[in-house]
């Protein structure tokens, strides 16, 4: 159990001299606190697995340091790092029973027999594997196998962190829910630092208390699910989290006003004069934009279709060449395909070159 610090950590698979833009992981400095439940969220190829493999030591970093409780462990091998990792596909030692599989990481470290048995029993109980303990591990279903993999990750009580690399990919959707809540329960029970890699936002948001969003080799935001939703630090976060994602619209911003196609939208904060030469956009989640009957004070948009998501309806609209999604208030009806858009100024954010600009209250 440890606090993990990453100091200027970076990884290039093309050698250290390659241009920074080609790095799989651009330099990152951050801290993972002891006992936290983290999710590393991002699309495929964003560097999240690389970051995970750097922490576990499967990959040696091109630059930077990894500290466990302030101790530099960068040069140490995986075996010496005291890390547990669970992989995307279940890894089972075919010749062993389920119990022997669970005991394997402990036996390799010379843990006393009695302690091994006690720990294996505890983990098997937590994962509902007790009835299978004496069975050969090969004759089991995929989710049972993945449970064994999870169990091997969790069986050591002294690990600095348990890393999960999209562990539920091979599991049926129905069992996914069960296993995910199981993991959450295990996190509370075992007080381990857990880092969970996924590209599925639901998985990330339900599992973690801190979600780290990665994009193109960079950590773009790290925060609670609510922070990511309410105040994305980067347009990518806004777009990636939420369904549908955040509306990003090119605009001119000065003071308390944003202009789209000459139409003025009020802002809650004062942005003064933004630096010239940057791409200025405003971002607002569909949940905070309503369609309304066209009126002179409203930004007018063309409705393309309306998606019914059950408890909520979203209109897909177009303003000029920009597509947006907006909430359809109950009882809304309009003749023709033109509507007005009503923005909630508290949730309209301003981005310069994709990064959030903090206004002055």
């Amino acid at each position, binding site marked *: 159990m440890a606090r993990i610090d990453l100091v200027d950590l970076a990884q290039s698979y093309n050698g250290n001299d390659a241009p920074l833009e080609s790095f799989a992981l651009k330099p990152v400095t951050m801290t993972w606190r002891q006992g936290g439940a983290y999710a590393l969220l991002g699309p495929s190829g964003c560097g999240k697995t690389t970051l995970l493999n750097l922490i576990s030591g499967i990959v040696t970093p091109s630059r930077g340091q990894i500290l466990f409780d302030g101790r530099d462990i960068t040069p140490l091998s995986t*075996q010496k790092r005291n890390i*547990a*990792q669970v992989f995307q596909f279940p890894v089972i030692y075919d010749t062993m029973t389920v119990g022997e599989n669970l005991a394997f990481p402990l036996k*390799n470290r010379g843990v006393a027999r009695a302690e091994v048995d006690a720990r294996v029993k505890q983990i098997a109980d937590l994962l509902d594997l007790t009835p299978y303990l004496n069975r050969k591990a090969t004759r089991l279903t*995929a989710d049972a196998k993945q449970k064994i993999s999870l169990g*091997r990750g969790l069986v050591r009580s002294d690990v600095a962190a348990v890393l999960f690399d999209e562990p539920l990919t091979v599991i049926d959707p129905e069992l996914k829910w069960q296993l995910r809540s199981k993991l959450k329960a295990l996190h509370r029970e075992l007080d381990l630092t857990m880092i969970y890699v996924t590209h599925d936002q639901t998985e990330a948001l339900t599992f973690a208390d801190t979600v780290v969003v990665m994009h193109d080799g960079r950590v773009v935001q790290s925060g609670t699910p609510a922070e990511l939703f309410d105040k994305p630090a980067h347009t990518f976060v806004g777009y990636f989290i939420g369904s549908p994602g955040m509306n990003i619209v090119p605009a001119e911003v000065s003071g308390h006003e944003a202009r789209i196609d000459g139409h003025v939208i009020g802002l809650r904060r004062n942005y003064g004069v933004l630096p010239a030469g940057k791409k200025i956009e405003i971002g607002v989640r569909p949940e905070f934009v309503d369609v309304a009957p066209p009126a002179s004070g409203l930004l007018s948009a063309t409705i393309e279709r309306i998606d019914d998501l059950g408890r909520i309806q979203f209109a897909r609209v177009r303003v000029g060449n920009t597509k947006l999604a907006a909430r359809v208030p109950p009882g809304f009806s309009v003749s023709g395909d033109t509507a007005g858009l009503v923005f909630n100024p508290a949730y309209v954010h301003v981005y310069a070159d994709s990064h959030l600009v903090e206004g002055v209250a």
Partner: protein
Amino acid sequence: MDKTINQKAWFLVLPVFLVVAFSAVLPLMTVVNYSMQDTFGNNQFFWNGVGWFKELLDPSTDLGGRFLASLGRNLFFSAVILAIEVPLGIIVALSMPREGWSVAACLVILALPLLIPWNVVGTIWQIFGRPDIGLLGYVLNHLGFNYNYVSNEVDAWVTVIVMDVWHWTSLVALLCYAGLKSIPDAYYQAAQIDGASRWAVFKAIQLPKMNRVLLIAVLLRFMDSFMIYTEPFVVTGGGPGNSTTFVSIELVKIALGQFDLGKAAALSLVYNLIILIVCWVFYTVMTNAGTERKAVAQGEPAAEPKPAAAPRPAGVLKPKEGVA
């Protein structure tokens, strides 16, 4: 059972039936015929019933003694080369590079001995081991070892075994390498995370994942070594004395050297039978291993028996069963 009855279909089987009859059944029946008779040449045959077979299995007779002695040598030879080639092949496969240009280089070098014809291999080692002009023989004698495969039984055995190891270890190594390559990286990474030692990785991951190819390797090497003829014949001619005379060499001596067709026919039938039985045992073991794996792949609920093999298309296949 709505089977279309069409007797003309037999004509479709006829060509195959004729080919198999002339290439396999008739020669085999000739051998069976010979094995029941004795001949002194001039195409004069005398009925001998199962006499040759009785003699063959009785160690007190000349024929039985020679057969059982050569059979013993053959089994010993197979056991020794399996005991050397299998572990050695695994070690070679484990130490081969996993990626880069050196993989191709290793594969080509390993494959080279496999491409050399048997009698050329024999000739290479026959010359290589000669004390007067052979590199190996000359150097060994120069170093003070009294090595001579023509006069010393142990030297002859060592030469034949080393030659077979040289010729065939590559096959085991290549099969094992294929087995190793099919193990996903995640297994090795997981083993690293689990703190497994090199030995534990081998025992828990590599060996279990290789067992299928190893079974094939053992089968192939056993069959080949049990039928070995050319290489030892070229190197030692079965000598010194009879010390490296294997069953096939004995068979050729009896059939072509002494022209004892009856004895030779009986011997070759028994020899064939042994190989068939061993084949069948291996085949059964291998298919059982396969079905076990299949049941595993289907997961828990699939423990119920699988439906029997697809029904045979029609009666047309039946004549072949008798031949096989």
